[in-house]
Every structure is written in structure tokens, then in C-alpha cells.
């Protein structure tokens, strides 16, 4: 019985140490390699009009059921949250790449977790590409 109590105490101690470490790590999250994260969160578009791109991103987010939380033309960022029993928050930024392209980067947070699975980002960029295509066709 004594042994069991000792062991349980030991495991509790280990768990609390792990929890402390996790809390510290979350401040500057580095779960993944920076390069991998950037590559799954970014897409390059042959598009030069930054304002139009921002407006298309806003429209896409609205189509996906997001409420816009913030937009800044100077910085080139848009943030929005989708609530449907869960909270999915996204920030999308647009910056020029050379004279003929724009890099769109998005990062998402699902409830209290960061999203590092490539699939949701692929879906978002597919939706954005579709919106850009329709925009170009003026549909």
C-alpha cells in the first residue's frame, strides 16, 4: 500500500513538472520546424493588387462562416473567427513577392490549440483560389 502511494506521488510529481515545461514552451511555440510550418501555411499567387487580394480574403472568410475580427490594410492582415460550437480563429497576411506576386500566409487556432495539420490550410487556400478565379471571371 505504502509503495503504491509513493509511486502515485512520484508520477504526480513527474506530470506536474511536464505541465510546467509545457506552459513555458507555449509562449514561443516551436512544435514544428519553422520551414515546414511556413510552407504549409503559405501560397504564392500571381496577383499584384494587394487591396483586392485582402478584400477577396475577407469575402472568402465570410463565405466560410467567419466573422471578421480585425483588418489592417497597411500591415496587410485580416483576422476572423468561426464559431460553430467551436472557435476557429484565423489570421491571414498578404505581402508582396517581387513585383508580380503576392504571398498569402494564414495561421489558425482551433479552440486552444494551434493548427499544424496541412489539410485545413489546403482547404482554405482551395477556397481562396476559387474565389480569386470567380473574381477574375467577374462572376
Amino acid at each position, binding site marked *: 500500500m505504502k509503495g*503504491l502511494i509513493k*509511486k502515485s506521488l512520484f508520477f504526480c510529481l513527474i506530470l506536474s513538472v511536464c505541465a510546467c515545461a509545457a506552459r513555458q514552451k507555449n509562449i514561443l511555440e516551436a512544435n514544428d520546424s519553422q520551414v515546414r510550418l511556413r510552407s504549409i501555411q503559405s501560397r504564392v499567387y500571381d496577383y499584384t493588387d494587394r487591396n483586392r487580394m485582402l478584400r477577396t480574403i475577407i469575402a472568402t472568410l465570410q463565405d466560410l462562416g467567419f466573422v471578421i475580427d480585425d483588418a489592417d490594410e497597411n500591415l496587410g492582415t485580416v483576422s476572423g473567427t468561426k464559431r460553430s460550437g467551436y472557435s476557429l480563429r484565423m489570421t491571414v497576411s498578404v505581402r508582396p513577392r517581387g513585383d508580380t506576386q503576392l504571398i498569402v500566409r494564414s495561421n489558425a487556432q*482551433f479552440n486552444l490549440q494551434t493548427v499544424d495539420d496541412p489539410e485545413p490550410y489546403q482547404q482554405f487556400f482551395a477556397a481562396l483560389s476559387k474565389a480569386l478565379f470567380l473574381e477574375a471571371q467577374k462572376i
Partner: protein
Amino acid sequence: MRSGKVLHIPMVFILVALTMLACQKSVPREALMFTTESLADRQLQTRIFETNHEGKLLEASAAVLQDLGFTIDESEVKCGVIVCSKDRNVTEFYDVGLSIIASLFFIDYEYAVRQKVLASLVTRPLEEDRIAVRITFQHLVWDTKKELIKNERVNEPEIYQEFFSKLSKSVFLTAHEI
């Protein structure tokens, strides 16, 4: 043999706990996809105004949002965005009554007490001097234990219809500088 068994119990418990932590839900598949409802939602949430004064339209929109008791949290005219919210007490008298009756039987009765409504309004210039205005509402509701019990989009068509009828009036008033 006996000590081996004792060691296994906490180990199994920890493994189960770790597995549960690892199985936290991820982004639902349909969250970032256009669905069949996307188009219907867009139609419900959008009205088109025949004007080319985006700034004036935003001004009229901000005025309606203020009429409806919203406070403006953010705005970016260059992107045609207004973000606003309001916090309200949503306690109903019958809930208070029921909670008193429930307490007589030592039962906890939780009910909605606070609601936060969030809205974002976006204008988008279209061709031929037309501008589309789209508004989306979401609401969050907390109960007496301060637990979040509702966290979703507002879907009632009447709310959007009422908003746009007010906006049409406001556009008229703004155009006439009233």
C-alpha cells in the same frame, strides 16, 4: 508478482490519460470548405446598393450599428470593414423562478445570463457603381456558472432582413444629411 501488479495500475492510468490528451479534437473537415449552404448564407447576409460612395455607405452602416446598440471595436475603411459587438444581460424571469424552485429541492439550475453579439460588416465594390454590403452575426452565451453554453452563428433570416431594412433607411438619411 504482487509488486508488478501494483506498478501496472498507475502506468495504465497514465497511459490512458496521455492517450486522451492526444485525442483532442481537431478542425472539423467541413469547417474550411464551401458547403451547399454557403451560397444561401451569402444571399441572406448580403444586399447590393447602387452607389459608388463606399465611405458614405460605411458611415450609414456604422450609424445603424450604433442605432442597434453595438459599439465599434475595429474599422478599416480601406478594406471596407467594420467590426462591432455588444454585451447584454439575457436573464429571463421564468429562469430565475425555476432556479428558486430547483434550489428548494437542492438541484442546481443553470440558465443563460450573459450574451455577447459580434458582428462584422464588409463592403465590397462591384462593377457598374454598385457596392455589396455583407453582415455576419455570431453570438456567445454564458450561464450562471460563467460557462460558455452557446458559441455560434446567428442564422435567423428575420435578423438580417431587419438589419438591411434599417440600413436602407440609414443610407437615405445619410444621403440627405439627416
